[in-house]
């Protein structure tokens, strides 16, 4: 502490001067921190700006809060613990806490196919969908033009070149046209060649989707093209009346009013395809239980989920325990080698295991039928009960090594005095196991068994990779099958990978899974009493 101290110099500093005299304010650490914070701020500010541009208010608010807190935490002297927790906390809040809350929100809406945008966006979509070519519209010679990533249309009317994009209505610019009136040179824009349009599908799609407003007035319609060489004026047959909150079809006179389901319904009973999501309360939950299309398959799926998770844990635990009991014997030679060979399946990546077994269980060419069943044509993955059995069998192969390792460890840590005392008291081997070894073993393995149950409850990989949830239920149109567990059912219903999307119902089922897993974990939580450690 004082300058007279002759203790060896501290590892972090040089010289014998007191540390209180040394100026340590701005070291390399500070420079590094400053650099990192500069990058973070640059990223944060750009995120805030683009959120502003995209009018994404929630993201805007979240980015501002996160950035301000970050600067406050790292430049104040007081928030020491948060300096270490904050980076992980940001990811935790955004990608775990928020997604859980958002799941609960989506579960109360009818978010899904036909209802996947907000109301304002749905109105825009309805107006676009109702666009028709205006009768007698002249056809303008067209050139597609480009400026960086923005594409636009250049047309000519009586030799005058006009350019517009989806954002900017048509405006006059300098340029030249050829004999047919097609613009060949446009000031400030690059002309996209027709060949390029033909060869680049994505670009062609972008061009056919492009709508260039004729003027600032929406009623003037917009220019569209089908083939990229001529443009015509299109106008929506629907008119949006903001005051009355209705859409009116000017051709047929039908007035469409919004209903509380997020759809525009006309006075003739017809509906518009574009809808928006609305709050439907607990309807998704009741739909899962009462809708005959869903309730029966979902009941079967739920039952199988529990059966799968319980049977997997029970079978692999018992097999692993049996192997551990047999081979926890000092008289056996080469125990280490044996153990390494026993746990081979565990070291093999799980998704590859499932795919590999899918091939081996193939009824026609798979080696399981050829090697072990004399070439019999057993349809392992095509029959509902055999498919369930196959899944349990493959999962047993995959997870018994885990229990073998865990039980071996637990057996070795059991006190030998109790078993010896039992032996002296004349207990047989079975009695020793049943009354002493097994109960003691359960104490240390029960929390792991519960965790394993929770894991298998959501073991999407093995189900999806082995059977895809199939064979499909035949008595329903819902894309579910005999081996689907809840999470794979959610995957199918949500439609995130194609098919009809029903995010609302999928999120509602996620909530159910959360509740089950939460309850089971709470059980484990009480068991382990981890809280006592703090």
């Amino acid at each position, binding site marked *: 502490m004082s300058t007279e101290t002759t203790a060896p110099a501290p590892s*972090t500093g040089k010289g014998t001067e007191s540390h209180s005299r040394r100026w340590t304010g701005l070291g390399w650490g500070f420079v590094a921190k400053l650099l990192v914070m500069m990058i973070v701020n640059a990223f944060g500010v750009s995120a805030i700006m683009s959120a502003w541009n995209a009018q*994404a208010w929630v993201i805007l608010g979240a980015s501002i809060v996160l950035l301000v807190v970050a600067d406050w935490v790292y430049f104040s002297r007081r928030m020491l613990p948060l300096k270490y927790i904050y980076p992980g906390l940001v990811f935790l809040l955004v*990608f775990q806490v928020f*997604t859980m809350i958002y799941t609960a929100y989506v579960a109360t809406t009818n978010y899904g196919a036909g209802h996947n945008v907000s109301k304002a966006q749905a109105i825009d979509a309805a107006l676009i969908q109702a666009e028709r070519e205006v009768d007698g519209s002249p056809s303008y010679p067209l050139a597609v033009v480009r400026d960086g990533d923005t594409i636009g249309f250049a047309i000519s009317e009586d030799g005058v070149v006009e350019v517009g994009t989806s954002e900017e209505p048509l405006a006059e610019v300098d340029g030249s046209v050829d004999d047919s009136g097609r613009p060949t040179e446009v000031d400030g824009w690059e002309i996209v060649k027709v060949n390029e349009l033909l060869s680049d599908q994505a670009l062609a799609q972008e061009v056919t989707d492009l709508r260039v407003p004729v003027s600032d007035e929406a009623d003037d319609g917009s220019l569209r093209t089908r083939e990229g060489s001529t443009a015509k004026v299109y106008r929506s047959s629907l008119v949006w009346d903001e005051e009355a909150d209705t859409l009116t079809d000017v051709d047929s006179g039908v007035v469409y009013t919004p209903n509380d389901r997020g759809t525009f319904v006309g006075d003739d009973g017809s509906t518009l395809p574009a809808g928006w999501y609305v709050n439907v309360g607990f309807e998704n939950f009741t739909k899962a239980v009462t809708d005959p299309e869903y309730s029966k398959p979902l009941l079967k799926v739920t039952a199988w989920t529990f059966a799968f998770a319980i049977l997997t844990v029970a079978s692999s635990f018992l097999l692993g325990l049996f192997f551990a009991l047999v081979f926890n014997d000092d008289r056996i030679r080469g125990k280490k080698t044996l153990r390494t060979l026993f746990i081979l399946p565990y070291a093999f*990546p799980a998704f590859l295991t499932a795919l590999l077994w899918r*091939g081996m269980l193939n009824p026609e060419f798979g080696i399981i039928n050829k090697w072990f069943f004399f070439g019999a044509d057993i349809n392992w993955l095509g029959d509902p009960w055999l498919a369930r059995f196959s899944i349990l069998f493959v999962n047993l192969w995959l997870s018994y090594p885990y229990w073998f390792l865990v039980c071996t460890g637990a057996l070795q840590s059991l006190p030998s005095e109790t078993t010896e005392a039992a032996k002296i008291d004349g207990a047989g081997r079975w009695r020793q196991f049943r009354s002493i070894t097994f109960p003691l073993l359960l104490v240390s393995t029960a929390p792991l068994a519960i965790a394993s149950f929770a894991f298998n409850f959501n073991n999407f990989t093995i189900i999806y990779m082995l059977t895809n949830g199939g064979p499909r239920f035949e008595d329903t149109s819902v894309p579910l099958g005999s081996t689907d567990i809840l999470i794979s059912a959610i995957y199918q219903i949500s439609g995130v990978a194609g098919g009809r999307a029903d995010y609302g119902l999928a999120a509602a089922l996620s909530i159910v899974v959360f509740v089950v897993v939460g309850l089971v974990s709470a059980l484990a939580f009480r068991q382990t009493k981890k809280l006592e450690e703090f």
Partner: protein
Amino acid sequence: MATTAPTTGTSNRFQHTRRSRWWLEVGWKYPLAALIIFYAAFPLVFVLSASLDERGSLAGTQRLFGSISFENYQNLNDTLFWTWVGNTLFIGLSAAIGAVLMGAAAAYAFSRFRFQGRRSSLTGLLILQMFPQTVAFVAVFLLLISLGEVIPALGINSKIALICVYLGTALGSNTFLMYGFFNSIPQEMDEAAKIDGASHSQIFWGMIMPLVRPVLAVVGLLAFVSAFGDFILARIILVSSENWTLAVGMYQWVSDQLTARWGIFSAGTVIAALPVLVLFLALQRYIVGGLTAGSVKG
């Protein structure tokens, strides 16, 4: 010994009973071990044999090692396999490094600082980690669609976005594993360093981090393996085939019964599984310790 040594009748009988006792108590375990090893290893032997088979179809691979050729391995070059390996390594390593750094920093804070809300934050983390992130994949998907409109790098079909999603679980699942380990390093060392003039960041980077290397390795490995094995999030987030990870890509190879490509799948499996297998077996002792504490797989 019993058969060669000249012995009297009684000792011969004694040897005999000893032998049968040996069989009863220990000997039968060796045939059982052989059976278990067959059960554990035959799928792996099969996939190795299939990868060396020149025909490359499921039907042609029923005879073990019927032909030895490296054609399947060469054919991997015509596919996107190595791109997927690169993606998987990039995503897995980034997720692992991020999880290690963020988990260690949080564990350091919880272990070394006493602050308001420490106990409740720990309890909160413990509760949060019970809820698997994958179940909320619908919300993750919708969130990334909205984020992508603002920050394209965090949208659907971005590897960075997938890494960020994986990092969402870093704090919940790893803090506890590390917290216990950090607590086992005596506080007195920190105090000694503090007296010597070290700042909190110098203590963290210079002293604690080197001491907790074993737990860092375990957490990194577990994070890598879970990213390596994840299918559902990778599948919905990574859309175009050049962004896929191995799990998504190799699923595509065999999911369609009509065009299943077993030859290259087997070759790819051998290449993808071998490093993981070796790493796992080499580090089995640490991993089992980590598993029993965090129970990630099983």
